[in-house]
């Protein structure tokens, strides 16, 4: 359960303050499959960082499962991110000098999963992200953009999070691979009731979700259920 109450996020830069998120109030129930969409620069990634407990709002309250994020310490937040949340960053953020498998296993290392189990879990995650097995031992900076994206998705799925935050997860993928990834998300949502928040600016991608939130200049301009 996610509740945002009057979330404001401002950034300071040389020319003063810019307000990126302006008084956002909305809630997301457990098991929802949501797409957040909007033009470039509208504040989607900023919102995702707040929803993922990576960043804190300048003002307003963010409650995750009924608890105010502001009340947690750094380490408690790290634990929440590790156990509950899976991120797919817009810029992937893979460890360049590590292999694909190592990248995907990293959240499991911090979750203290026994070493023998890690590889099995990581291989499963990579499979559902649609990466060809022959790349598993490549260094991640030797991959194409689309391949990196699938590694990033696998890493987000690997710790079996109840909340998946995916920032443009299909942005670098061809339609066919994109469909595979979206199917994976759908399956996770349908069968395991994981909450999925998908950020995209493609209408067709957004339509896979049950609900679409539309943001423009840091304000929610539309919030509706899709027909299916």
């Amino acid at each position, binding site marked *: 359960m996610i509740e945002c109450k009057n979330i404001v996020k401002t950034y300071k830069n040389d020319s003063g303050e810019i307000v990126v998120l302006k008084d956002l109030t909305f809630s997301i129930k457990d098991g929802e499959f949501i797409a957040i969409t909007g033009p470039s620069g509208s504040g989607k990634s900023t919102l995702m960082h707040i929803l993922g407990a990576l960043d804190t709002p300048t003002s307003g309250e963010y409650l995750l499962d009924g608890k105010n994020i502001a009340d947690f310490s*750094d*380490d408690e937040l*790290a634990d929440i991110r*590790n*156990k509950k949340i899976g991120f797919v960053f817009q810029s992937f*953020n*893979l*460890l360049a000098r590590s292999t694909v498998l190592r990248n995907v296993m*990293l959240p499991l290392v911090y979750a203290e999963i026994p070493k023998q189990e890690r590889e099995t879990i990581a291989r499963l995650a990579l499979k559902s992200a649609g990466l060809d097995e022959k790349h598993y031992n490549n260094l991640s900076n030797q991959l194409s953009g689309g391949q990196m994206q699938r590694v990033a998705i696998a890493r987000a799925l690997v710790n079996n999070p109840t909340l998946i935050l995916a920032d443009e997860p299909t942005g670098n993928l061809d339609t066919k691979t994109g469909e595979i990834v979206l199917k994976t998300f759908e399956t996770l949502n349908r069968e395991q009731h994981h909450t999925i928040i998908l950020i995209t600016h493609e209408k067709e991608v957004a339509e896979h979700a049950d609900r679409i939130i539309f943001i423009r200049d840091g304000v929610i301009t539309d919030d509706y259920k899709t027909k299916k």
Partner: protein
Amino acid sequence: MKFLDLFEEIYSALLANKARSGLTILGIVIGIGSVIAMIAIGQGSQSSIESSIQSLGSNLLLITPGAQRGMGVQVSQGRGSSQTLTKDDAEAISSLSSVLAVSPEVSGRYQVTAKGTNTNTTINGVVSAYPTVRNVEVETGNFITDQNVKSMSKVAVIGPSVRDDLFGEDVDSSGVIGQTIRIKSINFTIVGITKEKGGSGFNNQDDVIYIPITVSQQYLTGGNYVSTIAVQASSQEEMTVLQTDITTLLLDRHNVSTADFSIMNQADIVATASSVTNTFTMLLGSVAGISLVVGGIGIMNMMLTTVTERTREIGLRKAIGAKRKDINFQFLGEAIMLTFTGGIIGIILGCLVSFVAYQFFSLATQVSTFSVVLSFGVSGAIGIIFGYYPANRASKLNPIEALRYE
């Protein structure tokens, strides 16, 4: 995060940057290695100086004719130049309390011949107490006896260098006993050969011939004069008191107010020599210590660069669940691993240098456990101290800012 995983992260991070890790380790290797080698060389020369002074005899007071000069450390050439000490002085000293033995000696350099070979060496007129006082051992035969001194027997005990010079390097020692040597056209029968002692330069105790002091005074030097009186005190503590007693006694006997003799106290010589070598060791050690600190700064520099370079990585790790201590331990661990590797290689290198110095430059080096423990401790401390700041900085980074870092 489990320890083994932490170790693997550290290990692979260091391997990913081999050249930089290697150079940083090198800084520590040089630091630790030089601390160990320098302390080993310093302590080695200290103990070799001390033992060569001790090998002259223990609890020794050396009385020589002529006024005191400077610190009381006289060069041997000065000895015997004036004639103020006599054998009677020696006898008087032997009746003082806390005197263990007295050895009056008269020495000079003479030409010695034997069976066509000849050599120029020190002839030392001695009494039977000489071996005890001067820490000399006889290897073959006997030393000069009281009877020899009393009856003025023309017998000689020769040092191993003299034996080699006169009879050749590979002569059988027992065959030399009973042979005759000529000093100043007087025949002496060899009755003993002393054990090799080593020593070098003006202080070669193997290149010497001992004859009864009475014979020496009668035929070589003339008169009742002696060139040295060596006095062995019964214990180290008595030496200062004994020195004053002897001074009073001799001033009285010579009937003078300022001393016409000088007394060297062995303890003083040892103390002076070891304070010199101590300073020397400390100097070497501190130079090496500075290079250790420089090595430590190298580690800090590398860690700060690493933290800056890997800011995005730190952000990512935090985003997917790394706690502060995980990041802290990872970077601290990298620093400690660098110093430990450097420390171990440095210790090996330091021992190797000491060994080479011992083998090829005959410096009596001693690698002390103290210096190994010290430098190992120091290297660990350097890792922690110089790694702590960068590691702590990394652990406090805000994940999202770190992820945006370029």
